[in-house]
C-alpha cells in the first residue's frame, strides 16, 4: 500500500472567476466581464484527460469545485465535466461531489441544475448573519437572500455546509455567540467557521497596513471567540473535526479530509495545487495562476502545470504533520516515521506533552483542546 492511500484520492477543479472580489479574500479569483464557458469546458475536459492518463485505474473518492465562485458556472458545464470524470476514473460508490456557492438569488436558481448534474454537497459562503456585516465583508447577497438560498439548497442537496467568518470588525464575543446559536438553529450538518485573517495583498491587508482597518477584536477577544465556538458547536453536536470545520458524525467534508489525511489529489484549473504519488515518489503540482495564460496553454495542447516538485521524505513528513495535526483524529506516529524517515523529536514532544499541548494515545499524536489554538507554535517546536 502506498502512503497516499491512507487519505484516498480526490479531484479539485478551480473556477477562477467571481462577480466581484471580496476585500478579505486572497484566493486565486478574478473578475471578468465575459467568460466563454464553452472554452473553459473544453479546457477542463482536456486537463481531465491529461491527469486521467497519469492516474488511470485509481478509485476517485471525491470531486470539489472550488473558486472563485463556482456557482457562476453554467450547470451544463458542471454536468459535462462530471460526465467526463465518470468516464476517466473508477468512481467510489459514495462519490462526494461538492460545489462552492454564493447564497445569492441568481445562484439559487442554478442549484437544481447542479444537483441534476451530480453535485451532492453544496458549500455556501454565507459569511455573516446580518446585512451590515455582509456589506463590510464585500458580499453581494443579503441575509434574506442567503436564508432563501439555503432553503433551496436544503431541498436540492443531501448535504449542505456553510461558512461563517468571525472576529469581524466591531464584533463582540456576545454578538458572535448569538450569531453562532442562530446558525446552529438552521439545521445545518457542517460548518466552516473561520477567524477573519487579514492577508497581505488583499484590500483588507492594504487597509490594515495603512492603519485604517478599524475595530478588529484584540487577540485575546479573538481567542475567546474561538473557545466559545468550540463550546457552542460541541453542545450542538457539531464538534470540530478540524481546526475550523465542524460536523455531525459522518458529515465531514470527505474531500477536505483527503488533504488533511495527506492523500493524493489532482488539481485542475488556474493556480490549482495537487499531490500525486507515482512509483513511491510524491510530487507537488501547481498550475499557472493567471486564467488567460492557463487557458492559452491548455488550448495549445500544452500542460498548464509549473515544473513539478518531488518532495523529499522530510518535506513529506512536514506536510503530513502540519495537515494531520489540524484534525481531531491527529496523526499516526508510525506513519509519520515511515514517511519522513525519522521519528518525531522526543524531547520537543515530551515538553509539549508536559505543557498539555499534545497527547499521544493508541499510536496517534493529537493536539489537545488547549493545544489546537496554538497549533502553529506546536508545529514550530516539532518541525523548526
Amino acid at each position, binding site marked *: 500500500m502506498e502512503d497516499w492511500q491512507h487519505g484516498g484520492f480526490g479531484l479539485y477543479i478551480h473556477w477562477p472567476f467571481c462577480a466581484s472580489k471580496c476585500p478579505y479574500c486572497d484566493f486565486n479569483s478574478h473578475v471578468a466581464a465575459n467568460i466563454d464557458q464553452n472554452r473553459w469546458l473544453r479546457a477542463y475536459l482536456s486537463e481531465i484527460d491529461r491527469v486521467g492518463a497519469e492516474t488511470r485505474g485509481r478509485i476517485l473518492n471525491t470531486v470539489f469545485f472550488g473558486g472563485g465562485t463556482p456557482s457562476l458556472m453554467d450547470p451544463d458545464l458542471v454536468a459535462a465535466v462530471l460526465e467526463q470524470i465518470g468516464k476517466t476514473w473508477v468512481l467510489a460508490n459514495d462519490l462526494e461531489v461538492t460545489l462552492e456557492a454564493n447564497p445569492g438569488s441568481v445562484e439559487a436558481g442554478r442549484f437544481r441544475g447542479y444537483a441534476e448534474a451530480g453535485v451532492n454537497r453544496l458549500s455556501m459562503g454565507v459569511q455573516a448573519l446580518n446585512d451590515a456585516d455582509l456589506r463590510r465583508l464585500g458580499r453581494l447577497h443579503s441575509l434574506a437572500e442567503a436564508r432563501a438560498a439555503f432553503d433551496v439548497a436544503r431541498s436540492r442537496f443531501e448535504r449542505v455546509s456553510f461558512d461563517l467568518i468571525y472576529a469581524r470588525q466591531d464584533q463582540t464575543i456576545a454578538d458572535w455567540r448569538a450569531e453562532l446559536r442562530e446558525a446552529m438553529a438552521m439545521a445545518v450538518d457542517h460548518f466552516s467557521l473561520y477567524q477573519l485573517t487579514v492577508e497581505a495583498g488583499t484590500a483588507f491587508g492594504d487597509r490594515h497596513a495603512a492603519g485604517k482597518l478599524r475595530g478588529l477584536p484584540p487577540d485575546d477577544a479573538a481567542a475567546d471567540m474561538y473557545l466559545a465556538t468550540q463550546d457552542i458547536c460541541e453542545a450542538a453536536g457539531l464538534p470540530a473535526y478540524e481546526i475550523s470545520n465542524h460536523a455531525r458524525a459522518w458529515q465531514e467534508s470527505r474531500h477536505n479530509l483527503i488533504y488533511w489525511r495527506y492523500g493524493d489529489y489532482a*488539481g485542475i484549473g488556474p493556480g490549482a495545487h495537487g499531490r500525486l504519488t507515482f512509483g513511491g515518489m510524491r510530487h507537488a503540482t501547481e498550475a499557472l495562476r493567471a486564467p488567460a495564460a492557463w487557458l492559452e496553454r491548455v488550448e495549445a495542447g500544452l500542460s498548464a502545470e509549473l515544473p513539478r516538485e518531488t518532495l523529499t521524505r522530510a518535506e513529506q513528513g512536514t506536510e503530513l504533520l502540519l*495537515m494531520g495535526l489540524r484534525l481531531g483524529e491527529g496523526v499516526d506516529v508510525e506513519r509519520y516515521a515511515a514517511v519522513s524517515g525519522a521519528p518525531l523529536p522526543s524531547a520537543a514532544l515530551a515538553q509539549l506533552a508536559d505543557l498539555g499541548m499534545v497527547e499521544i494515545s493508541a499510536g496517534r499524536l493529537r493536539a489537545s483542546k488547549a493545544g489546537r489554538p496554538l497549533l502553529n507554535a506546536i508545529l514550530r517546536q516539532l518541525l523548526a
Partner: protein
Amino acid sequence: MTQLNRIRNFSIVAHIDHGKSTLADRLIQSTGTVADRDMKAQILDSMDIERERGITIKAQTVRLEYKARDGHAYILNLIDTPGHVDFAYEVSRSMRAVEGSLLVVDASQGVEAQTLANVYHALDAGHEIVPVLNKIDLPAAEPDRIKQQIEDVIGLDAHDAILISAKSGLGIPEVLEAIVTRLPAPKGDRSAPLKAMLVDSWYDAYLGVVVMVRIMDGVMRRTDRIKMMQTGAAYGIDRLAVLKPQMVEIAELGPGEIGVFTASIKQVRDTRVGDTITHERHPCTTPLPGFKPAQPVVFCGLFPVDAADFEALREAIEKLTLNDASFTSEMETSAALGFGFRCGFLGLLHLEVVRDRLEREYDLDLITTAPSVVYHLHMRDGSLRELHNPADMPDLTLVDHIEEPRIKATIMVPDDYLGDVLKLCQDRRGIQLDLTYAGSRAMVVYDLPLNEVVFDFYDRLKSVSKGYASFDYAITGYREDFLVKMSVLVNDEPVDALSMMVHRDRAELRGRAMVEKLKELIPRHMFKIPIQAAIGSRVIARETLSAMRKDVTAKCYGGDATRKRKLLDKQKAGKKKMRQFGKVEIPQSAFISALKMDG
C-alpha cells in the same frame, strides 16, 4: 633647518559642524600644499567614520608653506586634534605641541559645550587664541552677538575676530596672515639634548607604527637612535618625514618643528601619547610633564550575533588594537550570548567608533552589552578590586563599600529647554555646581555619576532639548555610593548579559523599565513567563508575559500545504537567531533592543 621665528604651530578648536575640517581644507588649498585636482573634501579626516560623523579621532597634522605679506616664507604646522571629550587627554597633549589656536565658531550657532572644553585645554596649554567666525555668509549669521557671547562665556577678547566663510573661501588670506602675525613663534634650544613630545601614533600597513613628534629642544636626525623615556625602549629611526599631508622625507627636525618617524615599532601600544623622546646616547635629564597612561573608563561586552563569527571578531579586534592603544579587550563567555570580548574604551563615543569600525570594516554583526563603568570595590579584607563587568560582582558579604566614578558635566542649552535639562540631571543623581547665562543660552555645570551618563544620557539630553543642548564632561574622581547589582531573571533563569550595577534608589525604576521592555521584546510562549529584576534574592520588579492564546492558521487546504511547509522551513532558519534560556527562547533582537544604550 628653519629659523624658529619662521615657524608657527597651531590647532583649530571648533564644535562639530562648525567648519573645522573645511577651514583646514581651505588653508591646505590656498597655500598650494595640495594641488587643486588632488583635493577632496576634508583631507585630514581619513577614516570613513570620521568623515561621516564630522569628528576627528586621531590627531592629524599638515605642514603648510606660506609666503606672508612681510615677504618671508613661513612653515605653518596645523595639528588637527581629536574633537571629542573621550579623547580629552590626547587633545591636551596635542595642544601642548603647538603655541596657538584658531577658535572657530559658527556665526549663527555660537559657542557649544565642546568648544568650551577644548578652549580650556588650549588656554591651559598657554595658547594665543585667534577667534574666527565661520559661515558669515549665511543669512542667520549674527557676528556681533556671537562675538559678545565669546567674550561673555569664554572671556576672550573677540572684537578683532576674523569673519570668514570656509566654504566660499572668504577671509582665508586674513586667517593665514593672523596665524603669522598674532600667534607666537615656538621656542627651543637647538644645542640642548633632544627632547621631543610623542603627540600621536598610528599603524600603517606598509610602514608599521608611525610616530608623530614635536621637537622641543635639540635636533632629531634620520640616523639617530632614540629612546622613549616612559617605556625605556630604544629604536633606530628608519625614516624621518614631514606631512604635507603625504609623507615627505627630511634629514632632520629642529626645535619647534613637527614631523613623523618610523622605527620598526610593532604595535601602537609600544608608543604612549605624551611620552618624551630623546637620544639614546645623550638623553635629556627630565621628561616633559603631564604624561598619563591611557585608562579605559567604559566597558562593555561585544559578542558576535552569529556564534560562528567569533574567530572573525577575534582577528578584527587584534587588528584594531594594532592602531588603538587605548582600546582594551579580553575574552568573555556569557550564558546568554556565547563567546565574545569584554572591551574597555575611553568613553562612549570611542565605544561607538570601535563598534562601528568592527561592524563596517570587518563586516561583523555584533551585540553590545550594557556599558559599564569601572567600580572600585573596597573589600572587607582591605583590598581594592576594580569591577569592569557586573557579572563578576563578588559575594556582597565580602564587600565593604563601593565607589563609582563621577564626572563634571558642562551643558549648554537654550533657556527654553533649561527646566527639562535640569530635571534630567537631577533624575540622574546629579549635583548642580553652577548655572550661568550667556545671552539666551544657559550653561549648567553638574557633578554626575558616570554610570548614569553611559546609560542613555546623551539620548535623553538630545530629546529633551530637541537636539539643541551640547554636552561635555571630564572625570573628576571616585566617590562612595549605595550601589547594587541588579540581575534579570526570565522564567526564573538569570540572564547574565542583562545584569547591571545601579544605585539602590534607582534600582526599582531601572528594574521596572527593564522588565517592561523585555515583556514587549520576548515573544509569547505556550506558557506564561515571569520576568523579574532582582537585587540578590529580592525581587524588585516583576512582569508576567502571558501565555500565547491563539496562533493557528484558520484555513489550510490542499493549496496551502506547500506555502505552510516553506514557512516552517523559514522559521527553522530564524530559530538560529534565538537564544535558549531554560524553556524560553529569546530572540537576539530582544537583547539588542534591551541593551541598546541609546534607547
